């Protein structure tokens, strides 16, 4: 086939217009979300004292942090799905959840505490946290990668890592409703480690799956 024939063929296929990456990514994540929710409800479930916990601002802060991570990663990943896009200027969005977390740690420090700092940081659920967040995030990570495949990321490993943060943020939002450790110190340590692990898996998978 010579190039002129190819060009005519491509023009003949011009009627086929693909959906925007954002739409495909959203649909993909929405179809994986029930899997993660069921996974969460079967192996963990919401903590029994959730009604009283909701009055604790540090319990609520966990959701602000995890949703901030998911949303900033979503924005960055959609940006990176464009071939001409680089991480410059956008990657800083991922500092938003860290900023919220730092503010939370600061305000906890100013309040009188029953437990010493190290006890709050180590908490009771660190191992559950480190295994549950990656596990719940897996269906979402696969969905995010499938959605982003529809784009044209020229940095596949980086985009995969951001997809990892996106799915870890969503999974951590579920997990936060189970976990009884509400100290921002616990969140900063264990949630972050779990998210980094998912991002590493995402980078590895992305470097293969996201090439176009």
């Amino acid at each position: 086939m010579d190039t002129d024939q190819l060009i005519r063929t491509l023009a003949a296929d011009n009627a086929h217009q693909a959906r925007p990456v954002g739409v495909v990514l959203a649909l993909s994540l929405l179809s994986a979300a029930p899997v993660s929710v069921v996974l969460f409800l079967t192996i963990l479930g919401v903590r029994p004292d959730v009604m009283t916990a909701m009055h604790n601002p540090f319990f609520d802060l966990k959701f602000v942090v995890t949703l901030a991570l998911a949303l900033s990663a979503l924005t960055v990943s959609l940006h990176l799905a464009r071939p001409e896009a680089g991480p410059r200027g956008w990657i800083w969005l991922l500092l938003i959840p860290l900023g919220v977390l730092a503010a939370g740690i600061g305000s906890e420090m100013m309040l009188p505490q029953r437990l010493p700092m190290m006890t709050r940081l180590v908490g009771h659920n660190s191992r559950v946290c480190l295994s549950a967040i990656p596990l719940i995030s897996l269906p979402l990570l696969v969905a995010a990668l499938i959605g982003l495949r529809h784009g044209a990321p020229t940095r596949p490993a980086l985009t995969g890592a951001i997809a990892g943060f996106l799915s870890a943020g969503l999974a951590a939002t579920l997990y936060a409703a189970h976990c009884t450790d509400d100290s921002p110190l616990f969140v900063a340590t264990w949630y972050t480690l779990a998210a980094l692990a998912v991002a590493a898996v995402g980078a590895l998978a992305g470097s293969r799956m996201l090439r176009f």
Partner: protein
Amino acid sequence: MREREDEWTGLMRAALMGDDAAYQRLLRGIAPVVRALARRGLARAGQAVDQAEDIVQEILLAVHLKRHTWDANAPFAPWLFAIARNKLIDALRRRGRRVFVNIDDFAETLAEEPAAETPSTREVATQLAQLPARQRDVLQSIAVDSTSIKDTAQKLAMSEGAVRVALHRGLASLTARLREK
């Protein structure tokens, strides 16, 4: 150069609105520029420049399948060069060399005379032969025999819609095969 880039942007906008003729003109316009890039990349990597046309076709396929990632409010050229650079690096890597393609090359190339067409293309034809029968027949009919979608539908006893689907799937799997080979 500036003028040509503005023209590309206009043509791509029209193409996305459904103007097939504008799309064809755009592809014909970018082909020589992309060809010059491919030749330069091959020459730098110490490879024979007669493989350039295979790379040109891969780039055009990627432009086609990923055109929905172009933001119609942005200029077209930076998007095109990002796609071309990505495909060129991939193609050169597959040919066994680690290469670094400088983005400045793209700006330089634009100012140069477009290279003459090289007829030799093997890869697309090889992969085409290995597609599922229906996709292969439709692509063969439309691309090689230059039959219209309507006449292809009649010839293969398919609906026009089915021909369109097979055509698009064929182009997508052709691209996937070229990438994974």
